[in-house]
């Protein structure tokens, strides 16, 4: 996104459904309930939606399935699939479509029943041909190898990784919507079942059901809705590979590029950001993205997160809903980074509401550290 699109669109509705376990519901049921929740939040109806931005873990044409299910015939559809980052990426295409008049009400939506459907990751994608014979366990083997390399190059420790999970849990404990709210210590994480060295099951995101949706309109009518508008100030995408064996530097993600461009578009710096919502599929993600987005130097992410520095009361509020590690992770988490960032700015976060938030960052990750999308959201005061 370029500076010309800064503040041209706004989020006027956000909602979710099916958090935790959505017994008896299909992924599309959860998707539709999420859409209704976000539209209700905006005071709009499904019949108002003329732009649909959607992908799902099942089917090869999920956006068409979603439009059919919802009973709408959008003028504009974007079903680009870059994994969990897709829903942050749609902020760019929705802003472009709204700005160009290709649609007037954009609905970004996702739903999944992956916990009650099988308890394992549901995916329509096949393992890459040159990796499949070695039986990596997707996606954890990929993230484990990134963590191993970061530990090797920078001395990052398992304790520091564990502290990411502990911080996420501390935020979740104050969020009634979060799925995991029990106590969690560093020792609990370190002593949990090892799944893919160096990551234990507590270094891994949850497997839950759930869906989320946001509604966007052009900025010129953003103040005509019940909730305070949250403006898209900048958003940018970058990708570096699809297969983990093709990642050039296992310790540097394309978030370095997506972040730099999103900050430039928004005209702000990491020091200006008051709440950071990152896609934490695994504990190593939070460390990598804090480094690559410029909140700390490369290699210093471990020390940056250590001992509650990103927990409530720490130096930087990160994943204030509890993140994918403790709040919700229904296959793809990206949309929840946007929802939590928007709610912090609006002042109606379900858990800990930070004071006077004007600028928040949402960052989506897709594939195996493959796709990175950064968005910077702001209140009316930031225009």
């Amino acid at each position, binding site marked *: 996104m370029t500076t010309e699109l800064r503040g041209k669109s706004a989020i006027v509705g956000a909602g979710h459904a099916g958090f935790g376990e959505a017994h008896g519901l299909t992924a599309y049921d959860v998707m539709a309930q999420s859409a209704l929740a976000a539209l209700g939040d905006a005071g709009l109806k499904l019949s108002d939606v003329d732009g649909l931005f959607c992908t799902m873990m099942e089917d090869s044409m999920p956006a068409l399935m979603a439009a059919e299910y919802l009973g709408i015939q959008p003028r504009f559809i974007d079903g680009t699939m870059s994994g969990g980052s897709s829903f942050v990426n749609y902020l760019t295409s929705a802003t472009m479509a709204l700005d160009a008049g290709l649609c007037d009400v954009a609905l970004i939506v996702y739903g999944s029943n992956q916990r009650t459907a099988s308890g394992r990751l549901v995916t329509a994608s096949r393992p890459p041909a*040159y990796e499949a014979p*070695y*039986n*990596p*366990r997707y996606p954890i*083997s990929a993230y484990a190898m990134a963590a*191993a390399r970061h530990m090797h190059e920078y001395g990052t420790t398992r304790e520091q990784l564990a502290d990411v999970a502990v911080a996420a849990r501390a935020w979740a404990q104050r969020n009634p919507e979060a799925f995991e709210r029990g106590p969690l210590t560093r020792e609990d994480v370190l002593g949990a079942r090892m799944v893919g060295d160096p990551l234990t099951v507590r270094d891994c995101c949850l497997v839950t059901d759930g869906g989320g949706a946001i509604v966007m309109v052009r900025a010129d009518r953003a103040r005509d809705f019940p909730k305070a508008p949250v403006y898209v100030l900048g958003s940018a995408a970058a990708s570096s590979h699809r297969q983990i064996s093709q990642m050039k530097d296992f310790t540097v993600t394309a978030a370095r590029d997506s972040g730099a461009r999103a900050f430039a578009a928004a005209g702000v710096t990491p020091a200006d950001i008051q709440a950071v919502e990152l896609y934490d599929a695994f504990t190593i993600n939070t460390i990598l993205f804090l480094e690559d987005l410029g909140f700390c130097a490369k290699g210093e992410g471990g020390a940056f997160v250590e001992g509650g520095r990103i927990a409530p009361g720490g130096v930087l509020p990160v994943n204030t809903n509890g993140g994918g590690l403790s709040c919700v992770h229904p296959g793809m988490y990206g949309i929840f980074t946007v929802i939590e960032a928007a709610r912090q700015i609006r002042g109606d976060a379900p858990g800990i509401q930070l004071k006077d938030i004007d600028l928040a960052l949402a960052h989506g990750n897709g594939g195996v550290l493959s796709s990175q999308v950064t968005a910077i959201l702001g209140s009316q005061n930031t225009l």
Partner: protein
Amino acid sequence: MQDAKGPDQLFQRALAEGEILLPKCDDCRAYHFFPRVLCPHCHGTAISWKQAGGKGRVHTTTVVRRKPERGGDYNVCVVELDEGVRMMSRVEGIAPGEVVIDMPVTAFVGEAEGVPAVLFKPSEG
């Protein structure tokens, strides 16, 4: 695959015959992996096949934990060959947890999931 034509077919046919061939660009002289119809570095389309030297180092590694009754733990790693290309594989002949980053390894053609595959063992000496 006697009449192998495409890059993937040519690589797999060589592997079935016990040979590891790597694609090398005639224009920029760089190797690449996986095999494809163009060079990902300079986008040239003149590609030759070279016998792999077989020497490399473990770039990064993990142990996939699996219940003993399902076959037990195993190694998954990414090896960087001396030719400069990386591939996913596993190191055999030592415990999966003893595979470490930067360990020198030597390639051999073995079998994985019932198909011929490039595997590695610790280099001697």
